[in-house]
């Protein structure tokens, strides 16, 4: 069984370890800021446990929290940054 997962972040293919969170996958792929605040400032994962909602991204078209979601093969992730 493969221990890597292939997914796409903003259209770019990324390979990350299976079992990691989407937030971790984004960081591994080099994304520091994953959304823009109302004033245009960059924001990224903060509370790590589904409370602050800063790490929200679109996963397969639906808004979800990167820290709560686990990666899966073929996932399509879109950031707002």
């Amino acid at each position, binding site marked *: 069984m493969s221990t890597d997962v292939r997914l796409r972040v903003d259209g770019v293919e990324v390979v*990350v*370890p299976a*079992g*990691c*969170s989407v*937030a*971790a*996958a984004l*960081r*591994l792929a080099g994304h*520091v*800021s*994953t959304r823009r*605040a*109302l*004033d245009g*400032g*960059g*924001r*990224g*994962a*903060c*509370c*790590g*446990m*589904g*409370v*602050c*909602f*800063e790490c*929200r991204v679109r*996963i397969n078209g*639906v*808004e*979800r929290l990167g*820290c*709560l*979601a*686990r990666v899966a093969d073929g996932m399509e992730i879109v950031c707002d940054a």
Partner: protein
Amino acid sequence: MRELSTEILVVGAGPAGIAAAVSAERAGARALLVDMQAEPGGQIWRGQWNNATDRAARRWLTALRGSPVATRYGLRLVDFAAPGLAVFDGADGPLRVRCERLIVAAGARERLLPFPGWTLPGVFGAGGLQVLVKNGWPVAGQRIVVAGSGPLPLAAAATLRKAGAQVLCIAEQTGAADLARFAAGLAPHPGKWLQAAALRGRLAGVAYRCNAWVERAEGTERLESVRLRAGRSVERIACDALAVGFGLVPNTEIAQLLGCELRDGAVVVDVHQHSSVAGIYCAGEICGIGGVDQALAQGEVAGRAAAGSGERPRAVRRDCARSARFAQTLRRHFALRDELRELATADTVLCRCENVRYADAAACRSQRDARLQTRLGMGHCQARICGAAGEFLFGWTAATPRPPLAPAPLTCFTEPTSDPEPPAQESA
């Protein structure tokens, strides 16, 4: 819409929820355990599900595996469509659960406080970065400052170090005298003392500063340095991440939504963990921060009581009393200092979701007033972060939450319900 039916619904699969669900089944009831994380364990037992290294975690997670408790993960409670009818949202769409009795074990979150630069990517909660790392967030080789108050930053620093990070220092806002009294107060709690000694070993060589806190985080697109105050001196430290948390806050939203009485930010319960609302039990951190031992003891009591078995075994009573004393020691010695109220400037963002400035919030009389005037607390997190900060900064009491408790698709509220099925056990 998918719908399940159960006798006892347990919300939250941390230590309290696991103990509650397993104990309810042992006492002869049917229980369904639901959590928004991908697997059981809550924050404290994160990563233990597949590889338990902690003794209590192994014992309870093994008990959960072997019990007939039904489980569902990756589902967040967003509303009650009617009393006894909970609505959850998850990656596979909404789920409704009908229940006769409810045990809320929603745990706690970190208290994050505003200071200039705290919204920069690279600034995390202390426990926040710890759990991110446990789920694969890379920190190897990074320079990290850990700050805040209480035991959690220490545990976080140990995890970060093990993952290969260079922990530059740990800044504890409490003064040396209080820390010494806290250490002396650990004597009646040998388990805690051993934990503290082990942590100290794992953090050997890391600078530990008391009377110290981060005044400012600096950087343009991401964190580049922090300004650390220790007593009268201020030092700039270049770093890649800051992990900062000021203790824990009970997650009382669900209990509040159901009308349960609160006191000092925690749910009021009787000796059977029953809240002020009939049929609703609460256990663990939402009844007051007390740690994992207290959560397990309260979970056992709540599970038995909800299953109709009112007796409280002597060992459980003893555990409850001992952990309550420890919780009191923690509160007394890690009280937050006044200087932390002065860190935010007029322009510092207080409400991270709606970008409400500190000055605009400070001009309001209450959290509710701030909601109406400035939209503070009206965004995605629904005041989970700025509300807890406002309690400390302005003495606000938390406004009563309204449904939905978190952003959720309309299908959670509009789809008709199919016939309820009893839940079958599902592996994580």
